[in-house]
């Protein structure tokens, strides 16, 4: 430490030389955040407002004991399976859309790039719509799609599956295209130059090198899809979300606690399972 005379406070204790800038930064941050606090109607007093407190206390009191009757547990088991199935089916449908789009939008298989080092303007123009489509697909949150689909195809898991399929195809397609571009391109280029078709060049030139990363990213997205399908039910798209929404509305604290515990188990189990699969497959 380089303590000069001025850095020693009145009591002879060393003082933080950066104290003043830090204080000013804190004050500036608070000033910037003030409108935010107003906009969010930030008011801790509402939490201890007797009316809210009374409602919440009654709700919390219902939390114990958790609802463990066999009828409810059967329902819960079915909803859990529905949630898992929704995530899996949605991801598979997403793959059907993501793989072709990623192949179209990635410039790893560009033939014109062979000669010039860069894709031709025409090629880039043709890839652009696919990229734009991927951006639009992934930029609207899945639950908004679910909300829209529930009104179009009715209540139930179908809306959730379609919603996951749409959003995740955008996410998967974008990252897949990036992964193709990140691996060593020489094998694919050699194949293309030797006259093989683009699909063959992809299968034998790019896929072997990219398979590990592709698998690992897909598993990560599957984990995310499970998290997403858990909440789909809040807009009426089936699964655990619908159950907890109903239980909260009916103030059935015991049921809520059981479902929350199921979330905990589900999320931790998905963590473990995708870790395991990643080690086995990737």
């Amino acid at each position: 430490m380089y303590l000069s005379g001025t850095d020693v406070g009145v009591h002879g204790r060393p003082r933080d030389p950066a104290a003043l800038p830090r204080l000013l930064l804190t004050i500036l941050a608070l000033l910037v955040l003030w409108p935010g606090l107003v906009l969010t109607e930030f008011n801790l007093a509402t939490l201890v407002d007797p009316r809210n407190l009374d409602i919440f206390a009654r709700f919390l009191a219902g939390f114990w004991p958790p609802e463990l009757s066999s009828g409810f547990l059967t329902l819960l088991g079915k909803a859990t399976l529905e949630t898992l199935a929704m995530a899996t089916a949605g991801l598979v449908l997403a793959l059907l859309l993501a793989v072709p789009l990623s192949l179209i939008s990635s410039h790893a298989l560009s033939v014109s790039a062979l000669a010039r080092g860069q894709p031709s303007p025409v090629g880039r123009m043709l890839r652009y719509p696919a990229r734009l489509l991927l951006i639009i697909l992934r930029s609207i949150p899945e639950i908004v799609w679910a909300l829209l689909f529930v009104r179009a195809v009715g209540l139930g898991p179908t809306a959730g599956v379609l919603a996951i399929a749409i959003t995740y195809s955008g996410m998967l397609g974008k990252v897949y295209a990036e992964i193709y571009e990140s691996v060593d391109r020489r094998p694919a280029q050699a194949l293309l130059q030797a006259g093989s078709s683009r699909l063959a060049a992809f299968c034998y030139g790019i896929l072997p090198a990219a398979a590990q990363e592709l698998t690992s990213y897909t598993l990560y997205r599957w984990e995310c899809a499970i998290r997403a399908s858990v909440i789909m039910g809040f807009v009426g798209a089936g699964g655990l979300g619908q159950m907890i929404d109903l239980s909260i509305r009916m103030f059935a604290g015991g049921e809520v606690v059981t479902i929350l515990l199921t979330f905990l188990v589900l999320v931790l189990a998905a963590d473990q399972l995708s870790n395991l699969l990643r080690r086995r497959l990737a």
Partner: protein
Amino acid sequence: MKRQFEALIWVALLLAAVVASFSWLKLDFVALFAGDGLQQMHSYAASFFPPDTSTNWLRQIFHGSLETLAISAIGTLLAALAGAALSLLAAGRLGTVAKLLARLLLNALRSIPELVWAALMVLAAGLGPFAGTLALALHTAGVLGRLFAEALENAPPGPTRALREAGAGPVAAFCYGTLPGVLAQWLSYTLYRWENNIRMAAVLGFVGAGGLGQMLYVTLSLFQQPRAASVILAMLVMVLLVDALSAWLRRRWG
């Protein structure tokens, strides 16, 4: 050979899971697109156009967007503060019992989705953006606490030990020995989560927690599709702007 065989078994299991999922859900896509199903969907989609762009509605959307941004910012800030406090416990700085309890708490906080927290907080704090802020803060505190704790565990112990041996108190040693090393990482985790939370704050309104989501939910329930369409467009623009901004920031300082 054995490894290949094992991979084959896992692939077979995965395929079985996929088939089971489709049959469990009894998805009937044929009925969806056959007959007048497609016609109905088309007319439903067409009812969203053209989006409502009256000045009054746009002003409300602007206010809703600001509210969404504020929910995400304040929620993330609260989460970072709570996460930092909990990460100290979870990294085992204050004893093993505290470590285990903090990890349990962090896991519980993070495994309950934001939307569920929002539904619960609407009960505790009433309808409105404050409930959304609390919901984001609670879930994100769990996520950030875990990440912060990992950063703390990976921080080199040297500087702190040196300060302690030179006679500094435990708080001062932490502030000047450990914190400077992890602060950059903590900040980048927080910014990353903020980006996520902006997206999330846009939909928390579905359960009554304010922001753009609440506007979308209400307009769709009232069958005002053109108004809903402009809210969706606003969400899209916000997400794209945030994406672009964070990509730019990452290129610049990442």
